């Protein structure tokens, strides 16, 4: 088929930032998948609760301390996370590098109270359905945190390499920050389910 020139694309930037980036949409789609998974897991929690004569089943409510410390830590981490995102938008390499190191440390710190959360449940995964679902909720979210830490560490290494200072990597930093916010956001309903619903 014959062609006629209608448009010149040569002046377009070689990478889109924010919603012009493919990675942003890919990350969003994966957040939708995981968000649906978490929503369904919470639905399973309430479904099992609706069937049980008492809730928790044969166990006291989980101790609040470790889970609450983790929640506060996660909420606190949102501040540097937003700053990293802002610095990435401004393409400030020095601050982005520092911010990613801080975020990696905060992520690793979050695993410490998480390790204490499992024994604080006072039940094993194989004791009954209540134990199974709370271990699953915690396990899913721990996987969530761990994958994001790995992502942050890899990204931090990249930003310290010669590949760091370009639009694509700054976009990756923004997307990583977006994903961490999602990790924090999904924890809040899980925290309510695991620690406060049994106390209602």
């Amino acid at each position, binding site marked *: 088929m014959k062609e006629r020139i209608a*448009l010149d694309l040569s002046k377009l930037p070689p990478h889109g930032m924010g919603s012009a980036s493919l990675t942003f949409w890919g990350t969003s789609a994966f957040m939708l998948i995981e968000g649906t998974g978490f929503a369904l897991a919470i639905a*399973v929690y309430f479904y099992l609760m609706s069937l049980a004569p008492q809730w928790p089943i044969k166990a006291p409510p989980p101790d609040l301390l470790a889970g609450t410390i983790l929640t506060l830590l996660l909420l606190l981490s949102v501040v540097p996370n937003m700053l990293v995102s802002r610095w990435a938008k401004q393409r400030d390499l020095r601050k982005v590098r520092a911010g990613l190191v801080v975020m990696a440390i905060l992520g690793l710190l979050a695993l410490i109270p998480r390790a204490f959360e499992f024994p604080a449940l006072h039940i094993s995964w194989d004791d009954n359905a209540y134990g199974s679902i709370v271990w699953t909720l915690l396990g899913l979210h721990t996987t969530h945190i761990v994958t994001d830490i790995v992502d942050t560490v890899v990204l931090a290494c990249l930003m310290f390499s010669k590949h760091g200072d370009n639009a694509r990597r700054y976009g990756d930093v923004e997307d990583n920050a977006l994903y961490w916010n999602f990790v924090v956001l999904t924890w809040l309903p899980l925290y309510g389910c695991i620690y406060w619903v049994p106390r209602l």
Partner: protein
Amino acid sequence: MTWFGKTPSPADLAAGDEKAEALLRRTWSTPAGVLAALSTVDHKIIGRRYIATAFVFLMLGGVLALAMRLQLAFPEARFISADRYNQIFTVHGSNMMFLFAVPVMEAMAVYLVPLMVGTRNIAFPRLNAFSYWIFLAGGLLLWTSLALDTAPDVGWFAYVPLAGPQYGPGKRADIWAQMITFTEVSALAVAVEIVVTVFKLRAPGMSLDRIPIFVWSMLVTAFLVIMAMPAIMLASSSLILDRLVGTQFFNPSEGGDALLWQHLFWFFGHPEVYIIFLPAVGMVSAMISTFTQRPTFGYLPLVLAMIATGVLAFGLWVHHMFVAGLPRVGSSFFTASSMAIAIPAGTQIFCWLATLWDGRPIFKTPMLFIIGFLITFVIGGLTGVMVASVPFDTQVHDTYFVVAHFHYVLIGGSVFPLIGAIYYWFPKMTGRMMSERLGRWAFGLIFTGFHLTFFPMHMLGLQGMPRRVYTYPPELPWAGLNLFVSLSAVILAAGFLVFFIDVLRSVRHGPPAGPNPWNASTLEWAMPSPPPPYNFRHIPVVESLEPLWTSGEALPVATGLRLDRRELVVSSVTAGEPEARESSPADSIWPFLAAIATSIMLIASIFSPWAVVWGAIPVAITLTGWFWPKQTPEDES
């Protein structure tokens, strides 16, 4: 090179600039050789592989169906043992749903969507390659288990407690559950790719109201996959945990619930029907438009009907559970929502009928399959309204009536349009036409064989013949109809055989097709057949819904992409305005290696939970190779 950084002159274009095309070809080609074949990220090569593999699974599943019909042809037959029969019907159903129906529809999208939206590759092409290898590994797992006589025997729905640790010893149910993981990972990956391709890689000017209906159908389907498949992943993971590490999700004596399985399964399982059906809606719309040589009547109602179908699909799952003893209010709600889906389905049917009425239909083979689809799907839809009614469903539940109904819906609603679509797009994929004569034979045999096979099953069901039984006593009045059904199944199989022969023959010996043999209107027909590795010499600029019918002598195009690098145009979600140029990844062996590492981890985890821990190490290594940074255009800029 002459075109870097500047717009080519009209003289450049007129001259064809063979040098530029040669460079484009070198940039986007997959080299020859086994390693290159394992490394390719070309959506067309992966799409063709996906389609071919899915059809191999269709053929294998059909052989199992014939084996079942042989066993059921006579009362108290002893061709197949009860245990083997359980494995066969389980693998048949699981294979057809998870290894054929969903993958083949997504595979069609992998091949067609980038061409139809006017781009040079799919979004996240390495993920696309990974998804294919994972899908293949899941299929091999299931079929190897059948060959080793350890296949799942719990039905394609794997209801607990039958599939649970107490009643399902051994590893059969674990294999089923892990096969689900393979296919769902693959399906979800493709869904993400399709969403991002449609949202961001559309040609300049392709606003939302200029997206081809098939692309809309795949977009809605992809969202259905994204929203529905986490349910089955959660279900199958919980089942594995119950069986492997002793969780109690489905154990009523420890606070679990068997019905929880059904809720999770059907929350996925019902949208699954529309995951299979909606792509067919897109295919039918594309073909009807071409074979009537007019735009499809009611573009907006059709798109809205597909979106409405997608939303309603999530409100129907309980109609699979009417006999499970749920509260009556719930059953009434789900009866109403099940019947409500007839509204968008009816809208689609009437739009197609209006297109046919207003156009001059050309009855080539694809159109014959569309006629077959309209007749068969309407019958399946009517029996769907019947089983959506609680009193009727209570009577026919788990009888052959239901078997007849869902085969009418699935084969009528999806396989007929799919076979038509293969005849329609085969010339684009291979550069050759399929045989019109063999096509008519294939249609005649498949259509006749299908109705003679499945219509009598309604009667068997009304006579009380249950599903999933490997034999029946001669005193019951089912023998005559069963023999008739089994003989008819041979006619159906013969039809598929003719189709497969036609495909294999035409790949090499079909007459050359040319770029647009049907005079169709959408962008995939704007290029040679089969498409060159770079798809479009210049990215098209879209000015209407039917660009090839309205652009006159010359297609408007955009220039300015680099020729020595794989570059795509990123455009805005709504208006399709160009926003950026984006690098598309080069071929890589790492997705293949990552799929092998992931497969080993998943299969080993059937036997030990520690496999997840140790298996994560090779997976991490291969992912590191996959994502290892290379010099990018942004580095230079």
